[in-house]
């Protein structure tokens, strides 16, 4: 069955090719960084938990060495060929593949349908570029390596943050924060409980970078015992709007690196927090809206 292993093979091959090109171009630190990533994608399941931990330490050591170089500027040719159509191959494959692969659970792991579709789309698009534009996959890897170097070490930040979340969960950080928030609420105040819940979701999401980590904690501390059980609020809006209040927090935090930091690098913004700055004026009024809506529903 085709599953996540296929996706890791495609992604790992790209990182490995970047490492080889890095050696060819004498960009040693970048090559080492990409080689470590390729190792993780190819052999991560075989080197054990401790081995993976050491691999992470090596990645961080390379990243903090200050020797990784940014991508070199690239010349763009004057446009020729059906470029927009080719650019839509990956989104279209993601869409079509997701729908199609779910119909053949024997062939493709339905849980990974979207990622498998994305990887298939990448291979398809590379083949079409070769056939239509006469540009080889090697050229693609070279150009992709430049973009990856433009993102630099920030590329693994989302994955490291997800791993930090696992350590936080193991240590019970959520329960402690939930207990603190629970103590801070004035007794008998629906508005107070609503504000604590909505703000707590946003703030805890800002710390964790992920509303998924915040939700079980805030639901246990405030949402279920106070808003639902004590004040008789409908659990559906309490849960749904609470989660969305958390999403407002996601817009505000560098901890949500894949949404906020990686795009800033990818768009070559000078300000690492430029995307967050552009989101703040939407996130804050929207958080207020969510808290007021929830208060209106529960009271």
């Amino acid at each position: 069955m085709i599953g996540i292993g296929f996706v890791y093979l495609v992604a790992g091959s790209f990182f490995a090719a970047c490492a080889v090109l890095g050696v060819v171009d004498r960009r040693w630190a970048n090559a080492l960084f990409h080689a470590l990533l390729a190792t993780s994608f190819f052999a991560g399941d075989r080197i054990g938990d401790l081995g993976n931990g050491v691999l992470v330490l090596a990645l961080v050591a390379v990243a903090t060495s200050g020797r990784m170089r940014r991508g070199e500027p690239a010349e763009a040719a004057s446009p020729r060929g059906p470029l927009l159509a080719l650019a839509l191959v990956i989104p279209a494959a993601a869409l079509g593949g997701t729908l199609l692969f779910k119909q053949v659970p024997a062939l493709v792991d339905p849980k990974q349908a979207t990622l498998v579709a994305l990887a298939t789309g990448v291979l398809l698009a590379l083949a079409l570029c070769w056939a239509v534009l006469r540009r080889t996959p090697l050229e693609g890897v070279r150009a992709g390596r430049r973009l990856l170097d433009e993102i630099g070490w920030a590329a693994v930040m989302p994955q490291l943050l997800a791993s930090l979340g696992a350590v936080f969960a193991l240590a019970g950080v959520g329960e402690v924060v939930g207990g603190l928030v629970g103590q801070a609420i004035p007794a008998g105040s629906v508005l107070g409980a609503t504000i604590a819940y909505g703000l707590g979701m946003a703030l805890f999401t800002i710390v964790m970078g992920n509303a998924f980590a915040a939700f079980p904690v805030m639901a246990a501390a405030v949402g279920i015992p106070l808003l639902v059980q004590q004040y008789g609020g409908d659990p559906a809006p309490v849960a749904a709007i609470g989660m969305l209040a958390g999403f407002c927090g996601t817009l505000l935090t560098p901890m949500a690196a894949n949404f906020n930091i990686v795009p800033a690098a990818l768009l070559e913004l000078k300000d690492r927090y430029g995307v967050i700055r552009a989101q703040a004026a939407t996130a804050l009024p929207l958080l207020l809206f969510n808290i007021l809506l929830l208060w209106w529903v529960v009271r």
Partner: protein
Amino acid sequence: MLVLSGVAVIALGFLLRFNPLLVIVVAALVTGLAAGLDPLAVLARFGHAFNETRYVTAIYMVLPVIGLLERAGLQARARSLVAGLKGLTVGRFLTGYLLFRQLSAALGLTAIAGPAQTVRPLVAPMAEAAAEGRTDVDPERVRALAAATDNVGLFFGEDIFIAIGSILLMKGVLDGYGIHIEPFHLSVWAIPTAIAAFLIHGFRLWLLDRRPAGTTR
């Protein structure tokens, strides 16, 4: 209480602008030690989680295609497409993209767009082209707003789809308290916020268009 020291490490580390990767690893170590784990156990736990979350980093496999098309002139093509449309302002263009992103995410199609797939190769250059001639708008800010619009559209569209991760998580957590709710009821309650997000972000984009030439900020 002691386990919160990792959170403090994160906050301080980001504030003092240390390398974020180093800050994350130190925070994990401090948190684990505070919880009474030995350092090797923390490292193993961290390595295990790192290995389990590789799918987050797998998205970069699209970069060869994006890079190749950019060398073939994709951004210029995207620009000229927009420049040919008179009356298309940067605010209107991004509002249209916001609506597209919210609606497609509400249908569960979250992976068809994103910073690497669509924003860098298409949306950002198109938005910049639509802002051409505006001396009062910083191209850097236009690109940042393109990425921001993608995020806002995704976050406040996807929860309307009943089979998205966050809906399933909410259902799971509520089930744990003996509260059984159909995913549909959760997704319905995402609609008011989706509309509010469109209005608030759309209003900001409308303001972007209104700013008279020659003024800043």
